[in-house]
């Protein structure tokens, strides 16, 4: 292997992919700046975010040291444990804001759906990569069952945003593994039918309202449409160069809902304008490109599938969140990755990047 002949760099020893790290740090720095403005210009909220960023970087670093071999060895029991915990959430979970997402395991409260965000792609990547690529129909069917089971459990909580992310991470593995285009196109053709069935039998009333609101937000400007209208006003009024840091009237005067969490993109758009938006999208695009580059150059099928799935899932965060706040998609509780205030999702995301870095830097150990 050519890689063997290369001298190990300091980054390889640390199991860090530095271009990726630089991009991630850029995002997280931007996060603190925007959160200071969005959070009512209180320094306390910035410190809290910095603490989380620190924890996230440590999590990334620790996970990056775990070799992909280890992940494959432990994934089955972890996945199984996650499914059990998800069932546990539905049976004994604690509610907050109308949804049951937390499980109290005595020592602490955990959110099993966050664990599943990592367990799912590892599990499917492991399962599919055991056989030759592209997968056979029966592997696909088993894979689909492994994807659908936890997805339904999370949708039941209900947590539409997370279930979409988890289902995507599994399906991306199947796609990357070479799922036949005719199957993909067939599934897309069936989507309207499935969508109708989903609408009729699976969606909660509040979720339906969100979809209807998306189609015509102005119909109910003070009710369900308020968030989308205020968010579009924030983005649109930002113009090309924005109103300036801490000068956004929509955010500073609190017309924007969920300013420092789900709607933080609107704050950025209002205060930094199209220039800020373009920069942000550029960084995201670079991270995705880098993730896919690592995936393509990964040593084995497991690494390739897992790295690409994690990267594409990261993109789903970006697309769903920005699509939601700019009025393209219904309001679904997905944060803007690495920018939104909030601990759990940031730790999970950075752990995912830890896995990608591990895949990027653990090549030489995998010698047959």
């Amino acid at each position, binding site marked *: 292997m050519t890689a063997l002949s290369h001298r190990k760099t300091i980054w390889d020893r640390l199991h860090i992919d530095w271009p990726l790290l630089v991009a991630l740090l850029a995002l997280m720095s931007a996060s603190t700046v925007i959160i200071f403005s969005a959070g009512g210009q209180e320094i306390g909220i910035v410190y809290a975010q910095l603490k989380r960023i620190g924890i996230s970087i440590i999590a990334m670093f620790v996970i990056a040291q775990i070799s992909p071999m280890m992940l494959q060895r432990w994934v089955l029991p972890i996945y199984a444990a996650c499914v059990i915990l998800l069932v546990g959430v539905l049976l004994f979970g604690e509610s907050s804001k109308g949804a049951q997402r937390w499980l109290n395991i005595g020592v602490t409260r955990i959110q099993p759906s966050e664990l599943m965000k990592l367990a799912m792609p590892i599990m499917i990547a492991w399962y599919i990569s*055991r*056989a*030759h*690529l*592209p997968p056979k129909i029966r592997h696909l069917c088993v894979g689909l069952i492994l994807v659908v089971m936890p997805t339904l459990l999370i949708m039941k909580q209900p947590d539409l945003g997370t279930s979409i992310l988890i289902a995507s991470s599994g399906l*991306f593995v199947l*796609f*990357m*593994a*070479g799922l036949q285009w005719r199957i993909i196109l067939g599934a897309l053709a069936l989507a309207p039918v499935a969508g109708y069935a989903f609408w009729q039998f699976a969606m909660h009333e509040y979720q339906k309202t969100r979809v209807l609101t998306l189609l015509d937000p102005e119909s109910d400007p003070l009710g369900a449409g308020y968030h989308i209208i*205020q968010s*579009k*006003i*924030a*983005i*649109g*009024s*930002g*113009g*090309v160069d924005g109103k300036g840091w801490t000068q956004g*009237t*929509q955010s500073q*005067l*609190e*017309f924007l809902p969920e300013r420092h969490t789900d709607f933080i993109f609107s704050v950025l*758009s209002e205060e930094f*304008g*199209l220039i800020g*938006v*373009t920069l942000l*999208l550029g960084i*995201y*695009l670079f991270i*995705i*490109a880098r993730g*896919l580059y690592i*995936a*393509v150059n990964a040593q*084995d*099928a497991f690494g*390739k*599938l897992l790295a*690409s799935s994690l990267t*594409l899932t990261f*993109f789903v965060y*970006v*697309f769903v969140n*920005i*699509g939601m706040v*700019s*009025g*393209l998609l219904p309001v679904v509780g997905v944060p803007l990755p690495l920018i939104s205030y909030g601990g759990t999702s940031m730790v999970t995301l950075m752990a995912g990047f830890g896995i990608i870095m591990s895949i990027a830097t653990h090549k030489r150990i995998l010698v047959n």
Partner: protein
Amino acid sequence: MLQRRNTIRDHSAEANLVARRAFAAFIFVLVLIAILFVNIYNLQVNDSESYKTRSNENRIKLLPVAPNRGLIYDRNGTLLAENRPVYNLEVVPEDVKNISETIDQVSNYIDITAEQKEKFLKSIRRTRRFKSQVLKNRLTPDEVAVFSVHQHKFPGFSIEARLARFYPYGDTLTHALGYVAKLNKTELFDLQAQELDTNYRATRDIGKLGIEKYYEQMLHGTVGSQEVEINNRGRIIRTLSESEPVPGKDLVLTIDIGLQQVAQEALGDRRGAIIVLDARDGGVLAFYSNPSYDPNLFVHGISSKDYRALLNPDSPQLNRVTKGIYPPASTIKPHMAVLALDENVVTEKTQIHDPGFFQLPNADHKWRDWQPWGHDKVDVYKAVEQSCDTYFYEVSYRLGIDRISDFMYKLGFGQRTGIDIHEEKTAILPSREWKESRYKVPWYPGDTPSVGIGQGYWTATPMQIANSVNILVNKGVHHPPHLVAATKHADQVQILHRDEKPPVVLKNPKNWDIALKAMHNTVLRGTAKPAFLGSEYDSAGKTGTAQVVSIAQDKEYDADSLQEKHRDNAMYVGFAPFSNPEIVVTVAVENTGGGSSVGAPTARKLMDYYFSNKPESLVGKP
């Protein structure tokens, strides 16, 4: 698990497959990011202007700022209506930890009733927590002082001042000034109809009566505005710009408050009206209706107890000056004399025999003179001096109703005088047409003699009587009566110009002089002589004693009170000085006796005051 490991994998084919898929995925990502970007580009570039407008609409509100109401002064500059701060105890609920407990502590310093507390706690449940709410209004100066000392112990509690109308002279001027009170729905609709409602967006009170109502638009001023930035809950963050309200114009009345107070004292507890007109311009020096009431009660919303007290049989709310309906009685005998002379039904020398009664030819009915034995031979002077009824029965019979009602209409009877308040009645000047439309029967010759002595169908308001005498005194020149002399704005006094009404022209102007001379004689040796003995000025006048056929107010006929209400009304009209008249005094006192015993002495009190405390004349002032 391990068996698969051993199967041979085509690693490069798999790597190619993943690479192709990664490429496809990346293209897909690019397309979706492009969609996001195009959408945001549309929002931030193409539609940016409209979103900028909407973001400003969100945050910028225009708050109206109420103008200060114009003040009202009397002719000497004494303040009659002012704006005084009233102090309210207000609370911002957000800033108080335990509201109920804190209110109990505050009540150690300011008396807060359980009712007030309950009302307050109820009201804060319905409003924003950062909005100041009134806990108690109209604090006394003592309460303000005591609480100010302890205020630091109660964050969130504060004493707020607001301007409210105050009438320092209370019930002395109510019927002329009127009052302001809270703007109601009907008034708001009226303002909307006149497209004035935007000017009242910040206004709490509006003129309800009297001058306050008539001059509402002058007194009110123009609303100002404040452009403020608000947050999503409507809390004001900062003021962006301000345009000051324009205060209302101050009014200077023709009223002389000293004379007005004399009028009030002179009437005491008797029902009636007193008017003093400036003979030279029609300005009203005194305008008093008794009983009166305190207008300040209405400014803050009158309590039902206070309001019930106003609903007594003496009708304090009735403005007797302009809405009291009285038979003019003998006060119009000089007017009748002028007409008779000018129509030549009598001359200055004509003598009529008075046996104590008058009879129409071929009829039995006797119209009695007030003096049962009559006045023997009576000419026009004696007729006025002695108030001889028979003379005027005869004269009116000779004139006929048509000439009487035509002339009296010219003197202002049967119509509004046009004084500058809205509360005014026309009363009844009888005529052929009036009787036919009112009673569906023709005018009979027997209807005329009573009209000749100001009785019968004829009724008038004291203001009409005063106005008619003023025309007489001015020999036909008609200065319409008015209460407001000028407006004042930042020390700039502007006299309100008033149109003269067309003068009353006689065939022989000397006839005015005969009537005025007869009125002079009345004071020198006639019915008003006892009242004016020893006065330091030369006055003229005419007494009147009205038989009360119907009660003065437009009330239902009330058998129980008939006895008392049946007593005579005392009337007096007079002017002074005789040679160069300055004032015309009119007195009407209900159910107390005769014009010479009650009316004339009351008028004298006013003239005495006027000539010893002569107010500055507003005529000829720049």
